[in-house]
């Protein structure tokens, strides 16, 4: 039987890959040259590239402060997600009265857009007295339903006999989660970390609503502020965009193997 050549498939994938990377390349190129993005004819190869636009960004706005705020909020969101999603995911692997309704409730909550819940979320945050704080910005992102189900799927893949053996050995439920479940669910943990890090890193709407002072703003808010205040900053603007994007890309590239494995874990379960 004649084997189908693989090169057409690879060629198509290569073309699609290049098409998807062009915007990223253009942003990077503009950040290095300051060339107007509407310049015609467009230059594919950067002319006289330099890194001074990045220096400008660092000093034109309080970039370190925005970066620190983004890092703090992201760390809080990731830590909260690991704690709450793990415990919720583990609870959903148990049989208890109303479990089916809890799962249905969670699934139905996923259908409600965040914009629809902003007012109650704001009132709760205000009532807790954490408006304009890092905790307030991280609060709605401390648990995400999709990640609860990722943990649930991962925990259900752990053999029941292993948990029973641990219980017979005298391990408490907390220790079963910490010593048995989590070490066997590293892809789910990595997926949680990556997804929540990227979501909280890119969050715009909620931080915009909860922050009142400039020194509490995160990087996406800083980008909007940068756009509204500065003029003739094509290069610096795109340098800022690159600086906002790089941490998310770095986390994804570092953990893409676990990320893909975690997203597909449980996908083939019956």
């Amino acid at each position, binding site marked *: 039987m004649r084997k189908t050549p693989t090169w057409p498939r690879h060629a198509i994938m290569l073309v699609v890959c290049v098409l998807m990377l062009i915007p990223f390349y253009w942003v990077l190129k503009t950040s290095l040259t300051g060339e107007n993005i509407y310049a015609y004819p467009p230059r594919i190869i950067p002319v006289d590239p330099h890194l001074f636009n990045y*220096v*400008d960004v660092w000093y034109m706005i309080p970039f370190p402060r925005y970066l620190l705020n983004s890092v703090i909020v992201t760390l809080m969101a990731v830590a909260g997600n690991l704690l709450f999603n793990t415990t919720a995911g583990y609870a959903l692997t148990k049989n208890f009265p109303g479990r089916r309704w809890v799962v249905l409730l969670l699934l139905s909550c996923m259908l409600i857009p965040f914009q629809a819940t902003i007012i109650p979320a704001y009132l709760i945050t205000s009532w807790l007295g954490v408006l304009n704080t890092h905790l307030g910005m991280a609060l709605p992102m401390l648990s995400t339903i999709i990640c609860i189900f990722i943990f649930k799927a991962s925990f259900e893949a752990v053999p029941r006999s292993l948990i029973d053996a641990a219980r017979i050995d005298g391990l408490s439920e907390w220790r079963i989660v910490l010593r048995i479940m989590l070490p066997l669910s590293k892809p789910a943990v990595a997926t949680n970390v990556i997804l929540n890090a990227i979501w909280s890193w890119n969050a715009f709407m909620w931080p915009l609503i909860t922050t009142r002072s400039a020194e509490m703003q995160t990087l996406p808010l800083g980008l909007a502020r940068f756009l509204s205040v500065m003029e003739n900053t094509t290069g610096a603007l795109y340098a800022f965009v690159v600086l906002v994007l790089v941490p998310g890309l770095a986390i994804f590239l570092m953990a893409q193997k676990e990320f893909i494995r975690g997203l597909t874990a449980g996908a083939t379960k019956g």
Partner: protein
Amino acid sequence: MSLSGSNGWLILRHRFVAVPLALAIVTGAWNAYVAINDGGIIAGTVQDPAGRPIAGADVLFFERSMLNYVEERRTRTDAAGAWRFDGMAVHVGQVEAIAPNGQKSERRQLRLWFKAQNTEVTPLIVREYR
């Protein structure tokens, strides 16, 4: 993986450790370099087209404002044509020399890697000076 024992160093090869560690080392090295070189000294010389120093020339430093560059500092060259600004907490600006006969050099754009970087500017040439 245990940190102790003969395989303890292997954890440093894990990308979740190696990448942040490498970033921390680069950041630390860069900050050390900045700390050593942030004296805020911008210096240079003023010369005529033949390369002879011009004494008594005014050297102007223009700092970038929101819209354009405005004169911020001014100094005068010594007998060797040398000039120097101290305490310059800037990372971008322009310098220009005005010879005693009123002729000007080109306005030189300065872009520094960090604020107050010690910088030696290549000679400012006053083309019309005799």
